C-alpha cells in the first residue's frame, strides 16, 4: 500500500499523488517515518481545490468581455443600419470599443510583463488615433498633430511608469515623477501645437505649468530622499 505523507492514508499502489491533498507520493513509502499527530500539521482548505485558478479566471473574464464587446459593436452598427440604412457614425463607437477592449484585455492577458504591454498598447493607441482621422474623411490632423501628441504622451507615460517602478522606495517620489511628467508633457504639447498652428514657436502657458510643477517635484524629491529616507529631521535642521 502506498501512503500519503501528509494525510497518512493508504492509496492504490499505482497512485502518483494523493487525491486528498494533491501531494505526490513515493512508490516505496517509509511508513514508519510518517509521523502521526492528533491533527495534520498543515492548514488545508478543501475549498481551494474547488476554486478556479487565476489562469481559469482570466480566461473566463476575457471570454465574457469579448462577447460583451462584440455584442455592443453589433448593436451599435445595427441601430445605425436600421435607422439610417448605412454605416457611418457607428464606426466611431466601434473603434472606441475595440480600443477599450485592448486597454482592458491586454493587462489581463499579459499580467506583469510591462514591456509586452507597452509593445501592444503603444501602437494600438497610435492606430486608434489614425482610425479616427481616417473616419473623418481625408487625413488632415493625424500626421501634424495626432501622431506627435500620442508619441509624446506615450513617451512621457512610459518614462514615468518605468522610473516609478524602478524606484527602490516608493513614496512621494512617485508624485514628483508624475509632476515632472506633466511639466514635460505640457511643454511638448505647446511646442507641437505652436509648430502646427502658429507662425513662430513661443512658449507661454506650458512654462507656467512647468514653473509650478518642477519646484514642487524638487521639494517632494528632497522630502523623500533626504528627510524621510536618509537623514533625521534633527540632523538637517540642527542650528
Amino acid at each position, binding site marked *: *500500500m502506498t*501512503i*500519503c505523507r*501528509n*494525510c*497518512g*492514508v*493508504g*492509496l*492504490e499502489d499505482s497512485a502518483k499523488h*494523493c*487525491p*486528498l*491533498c494533491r501531494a505526490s507520493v513515493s512508490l516505496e513509502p517509509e511508513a514508519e517515518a510518517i509521523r*502521526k499527530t*492528533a*491533527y*495534520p*500539521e*498543515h*492548514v*488545508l*482548505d*478543501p*475549498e481551494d*481545490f*474547488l476554486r478556479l485558478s487565476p489562469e481559469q479566471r482570466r480566461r473566463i473574464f476575457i471570454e465574457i468581455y469579448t462577447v460583451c464587446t462584440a455584442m455592443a459593436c453589433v448593436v451599435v452598427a445595427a441601430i445605425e443600419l436600421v435607422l439610417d440604412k448605412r454605416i457611418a457614425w457607428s464606426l466611431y463607437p466601434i473603434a472606441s470599443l475595440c480600443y477599450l477592449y485592448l486597454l482592458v484585455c491586454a493587462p489581463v492577458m499579459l499580467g506583469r510583463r510591462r514591456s509586452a504591454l507597452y509593445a501592444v498598447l503603444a501602437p494600438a493607441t497610435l492606430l486608434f488615433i489614425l482610425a479616427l482621422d481616417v473616419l473623418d474623411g481625408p487625413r488632415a490632423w493625424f500626421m501634424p498633430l495626432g501622431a506627435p501628441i500620442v508619441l509624446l504622451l506615450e513617451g512621457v507615460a512610459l518614462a514615468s511608469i518605468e522610473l516609478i517602478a524602478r524606484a527602490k522606495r516608493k513614496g512621494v517620489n512617485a508624485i514628483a515623477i508624475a509632476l515632472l511628467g506633466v511639466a514635460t508633457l505640457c511643454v511638448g504639447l505647446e511646442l507641437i501645437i505652436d509648430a502646427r498652428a502658429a507662425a513662430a514657436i513661443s512658449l507661454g502657458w506650458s512654462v507656467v505649468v512647468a514653473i509650478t510643477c518642477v519646484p514642487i517635484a524638487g521639494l517632494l524629491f528632497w522630502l523623500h530622499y533626504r528627510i524621510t529616507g536618509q537623514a533625521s529631521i534633527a540632523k538637517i535642521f540642527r542650528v
Partner: protein
Amino acid sequence: MSSGGRTRGMNLSFAKTEKNAGEERWYILDNAASFMPALTDSTATLVFRISATLTERIFLPSLTEAMANLAPRFPYFLVELRRGFFWYYLEPMEGRAPEPVADSRYPCLNMQIRRRGRFLFRVRAYHSRIAVEFCHVLTDGAGALVYLKAIIMEYLRLRGVETPDPEGIFRPGDVPDPEESEDAFNLNFRQGIPFPEVGRKAFHFPSLPLRPGQYRVITGILPLGATIAKAKEHGSTMTEFLVSVYLAGMQDLFLALPAPVRSGMKKLVAAEVPVNLRRLFPSKTMRNFSLYVMPYLDLRLGLYDFDEIIKRVHHYMQAEIHEKNISRQIARNVGGGRNLAIRMLPLVLKGIAARWVFKRIGEDTMSGIVSNLGAVMLPEALASHVERFEFIPAPSHRCRSNPYVVSWKDRLFISFGSTAASTEVERLFFTRLTGMGIPVAIESNR
C-alpha cells in the same frame, strides 16, 4: 373535522420537507435550520464534527467506494443550498457522490455552504481517522452519527470485515424511509400553548480571539467508569455532572476578573445543553431534531459551591427535560415559522431578523454550550475495529469555548472547540476534574 384532527393534518403537511414539482425533487429546510444559513460566516460555519479513529490506517479507495455506495441511501444529504425569494431550500445534486477530502489542522472551518455545487457535509480522512463534518442546516449530531456509523460499516465491509446486519445502521441498498427527511418539529407542534420566557443575558468570558482561519481543539480523554462513579457520588447523571463542572469553571472565571471589569459583566452563567428530542418524541428523522435546556447560576444571589451547583443543575435538568416543557420551545419556534407575516417577509429581511433573534434569544442568553452525544454503540464485529470517537463543536464568535462530549467503550472524550486565544475555560474545566481524582489525558491541534 375536529380541531385536533385539523392540527394533526396541518402538522403532517408542514412536516413533509421533500417536495416535488413535476419530476423535480427538492427539500425545504427543517424548522431549526430555516434561518441558519443567514447566521453563517467564514468562522461561525455552524459545522460540527464527529470522527471515528479505526485501529488500522484508512485505505482511501475503499472509503471513496463506501461513500459512493451509501450515497443513494441518504438522498436528503446529497443537496446544495439555494436561495428562494422567501426561504432557502435544498436542491438535490443529481449524479454527484461526495468524496473524501483531506483533513486540516483546524477542523470545522471553510465550508462555503452558500456557494453553488457544495454539499453541506464532508468526510475527511487522516491516518486511521474518518471524520464527518456536517453543517447544522442539514442535520444534528444524532443524524451525523447515523451517517458516520453507516460509513464505518460499509468501509469495513469493503475491507473484508464480516459485518452483521445490525439494527439502526443504514446499509447501501436499503430504501430510505420518507420519515427520515421529515421536519419533526412541525410534526410535534402543539398550538395554543405558552411560549417559554426569554432568558436573561448571560456572562461571556472576555478573551482576545484567535486569528481568522484558526480554531483550537483541546480534547480531554477520561476513564468513563471513574467519571460516572464521580457523577453518581454527587447524585447526578454524567451530563449533569459535566455541565456543573463547566458552570463552576465559568463562575471561577467570572470571579477571577478584576472588580471594575466584573461590574460591567452580566451576573449570570448559563450553559446550553442540547437535548436529542428523538428520545421524547419518537421520530426517524435525519434532519435536526434537538432543542435545549439552559441550567444557570444567578451570581447576583452569591457564589455557589460545587455541591450546590450540581444539585441545582440536577433538579433543573430533571424538571426541564420533559415533553411538556420542550413543547413550549417547539411551539415558539414552529409558530414563528408558520406565521403568515413572517413567511411573507423576503429572505433578506428574514436574515436580518434571524440574526437579531439568534443573538437575543440564543447567544446572548448562554455562556457556552455543553453537548453530550452519549455512548456510541456499535456491534462487536465493528467495535473491535474502532479505537475512539470524538465530537467537536461548531466554532462560535460569541460563546468561544464549548465542550462536546462522546463516550466510547470505557473512555470519555471531551473536546473543547475554541475561537478564544485564552485557554482558561479548558484549563479550569480539566483541572477541576483532575482535582476530583479523575485522570485526564490532553490532546490539541495547537
